[in-house]
């Protein structure tokens, strides 16, 4: 059964039914015991009455002897009525064998041989098939002592118990029906906040991911669920935002190279005499640019996604060797502009983290230096030990006379190319975004500032907090 409401309802009703059954059974047993105790008391009274009636009758008839007179084998009822469902028999105490008197009886009642002052009882079935309770009594002294067994039909007890059982069943059924309705109502009200949350979850759309589930007014039991749901919403919002930003950035950035390509193709169709190899080469440059943008954006998306989904692998890398190796990849471009790199990295300075991410991070920063540092200038890669952090603080410093304070604020934005946009050799404005994404994926933080004394750009790699 998948419905919590139905499951709770079933368990509650089962519980109520069990408790009712136990209660009703207990009540019936207690009631039965009470009825039997009453019956026993009645039978004892009757047995005394049988004895007393006979003695009174004997006195009235002049047969007033110490010993009761049962001359006709019958006990004298006198003016007192003993109902027809009462049976009794009398034996002389010292005698055995048949009773001396009996009433309302076709067979014999069991003789219970009571002691003086005792009134034993027993439930027996008579020859006529009726079940009766028999109570015994011992009366008189010596040769005048007699034993009396008085019995009464249990039919009345049975009928009383049946009536009580039927009453209990009826009340129980009514109670069960009312309980079912109440439990159903209570469950519906109790589970209303859950239903409300379910409805709200069902209404979540990509456009409504900024909304959050109400925490303050949520029931105590649902607060952990609301917290987790809100965390989920936050992650989904972040993911959707990233996808939207990716699509938007990509679409926006692709428009210009696609426009270039379209213009070149349409021009070639309109004025075919002006086509030829140069036109195709220009078109190829546009295609290269489109390809470059797509590949870089995908790499950026992969790094960002990787940061979300899996922790980067850990390795220890020799920083000096890594910087030297990565600068080598940019050396020819740097040398064209006369840009040099000096390193101030203590020997055996290691950095920990994912080797691929470190390569992307430092590679993009050094490529940025080789492309945008002032021609003929010297850039620096500096590592300083940091006691609070088990990695060195890394600074990449290069002259950047064309860069303003305002530009620095945009350095890590995607597709921001500053004043280099007019430069046909400029790339896609994604290098520092990539570096930033790599740093974030490794729990690092990139910050940039212009050094007032030299006007140089300093990019610092430090722990995220």
């Amino acid at each position, binding site marked *: 059964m998948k419905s919590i409401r139905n499951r709770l309802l079933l368990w509650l009703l089962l519980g109520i039914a069990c408790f009712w059954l136990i209660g009703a059974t207990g009540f019936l047993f207690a009631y039965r015991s009470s009825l039997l105790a009453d019956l026993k008391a009645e039978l004892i009274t009757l047995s005394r009455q049988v004895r007393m009636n006979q003695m009174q009758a004997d006195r009235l008839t002049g047969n007033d002897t110490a010993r009761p007179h049962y001359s006709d084998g019958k006990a004298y009822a006198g003016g007192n009525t003993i109902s027809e469902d009462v049976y009794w028999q009398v034996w002389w105490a010292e005698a055995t064998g048949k009773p001396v008197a009996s009433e309302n009886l076709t067979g014999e009642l069991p003789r219970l041989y009571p002691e003086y002052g005792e009134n034993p009882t027993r439930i027996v079935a008579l020859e006529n098939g009726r079940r009766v309770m028999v109570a015994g009594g011992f009366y008189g002294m010596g040769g005048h002592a007699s034993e009396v067994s008085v019995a009464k039909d249990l039919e009345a007890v049975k009928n009383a118990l049946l009536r009580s059982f039927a009453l209990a069943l009826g009340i129980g059924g009514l109670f069960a029906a009312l309980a079912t309705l109440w439990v159903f109502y209570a469950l519906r009200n109790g589970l209303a906040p859950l239903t409300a949350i379910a409805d709200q979850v069902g209404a979540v759309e990509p456009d409504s991911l900024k909304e959050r589930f109400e925490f303050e007014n949520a029931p105590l039991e649902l607060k952990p669920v609301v917290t987790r749901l809100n965390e989920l919403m936050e992650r989904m919002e972040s993911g959707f935002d990233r996808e939207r930003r990716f699509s938007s950035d990509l679409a*926006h*950035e692709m*428009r*210009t*190279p*696609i*426009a*270039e*390509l*379209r*213009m*070149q193709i*349409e*021009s070639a169709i*309109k*004025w075919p005499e*002006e086509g030829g190899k140069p036109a195709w080469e*220009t078109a190829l*440059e*546009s295609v290269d640019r489109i390809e470059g943008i797509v590949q870089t954006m995908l790499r950026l998306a992969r790094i960002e996604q990787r940061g979300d989904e899996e922790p980067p692998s850990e390795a220890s890398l020799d920083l000096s060797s890594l910087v030297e190796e990565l600068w080598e990849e940019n050396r020819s471009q740097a040398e064209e502009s006369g840009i040099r790199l000096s390193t101030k990295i203590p020997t055996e300075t290691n950095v920990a983290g994912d080797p691929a991410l470190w390569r992307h991070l430092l590679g993009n920063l050094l490529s940025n230096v080789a492309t945008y540092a002032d021609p003929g200038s010297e850039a620096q890669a500096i590592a300083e030990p940091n006691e609070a952090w088990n990695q060195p603080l890394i600074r990449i410093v290069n002259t950047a006379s064309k860069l303003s304070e305002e530009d620095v604020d945009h350095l890590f934005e995607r597709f921001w*190319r*500053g*004043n*280099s*946009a*007019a430069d*046909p050799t400029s790339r896609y404005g994604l290098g520092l975004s990539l570096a930033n994404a790599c740093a974030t994926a490794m729990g690092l933080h990139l910050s940039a500032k212009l050094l007032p004394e030299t006007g140089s750009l300093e990019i610092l790699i430090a722990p995220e907090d």
Partner: protein
Amino acid sequence: MRLLIVEDSSRLRTSIAKALRRSGYVVDESEDGEDGLWRAQEFVYDGLILDLMLPKLDGLDVLAALRKQGNETPALLLSARNEVADRVAGLRLGADDYLGKPFALEELLARVDALCRRSFGKRSPTVRIGDLEVDLDAKTATRGSDKLELTAREFRLLRILSLEAGKVLGRTQLEEHLYDDLTSPASNVVDATVYQLRRKLSMAGTGTSLIHTRRGQGYVMEAHS
């Protein structure tokens, strides 16, 4: 017709400029906002083609600065930002048209033609002076029933003279509409082109003179001298 195109993508700028030149326009190119603003302030253009996202000075800032100075040169905005808000912002700042990237060459040319016509207060692509009819879109000219065979330079001269019919245009003004700032024309190129055009006009239709010389001032085109 002289146009200024300000676009930071060199490949796109070159392609557009080339296409416009082939369509009979004189085109100057600029790669950033500061240079574009300077050119638009220094030279007289019949139309501006401005990209929005430009280095140094944004296209909207260039347009706002020009309009603030009273420069009414018609402007067509090009942009990869193709949202309604961007188009509205551009048009409210004084742009005459907006074209989102990527665009079709023919659409660009048609919009530039319309832009330039508007700068001369013309809505129709056809200009009539006497029995001469100049189709600015088809770049053809007929006189009477005779179709004129004109070179690109001759058509450029005819177009500016016909659009400014009744106004005297000096040699410098005509030069500006015949050559861009990278070309250094010979000193008599305007006179030579006017001569060729006059000759072709006189051989067609009624043959009456349409281009008149105003000594010391320049040339004027009108049906009656």
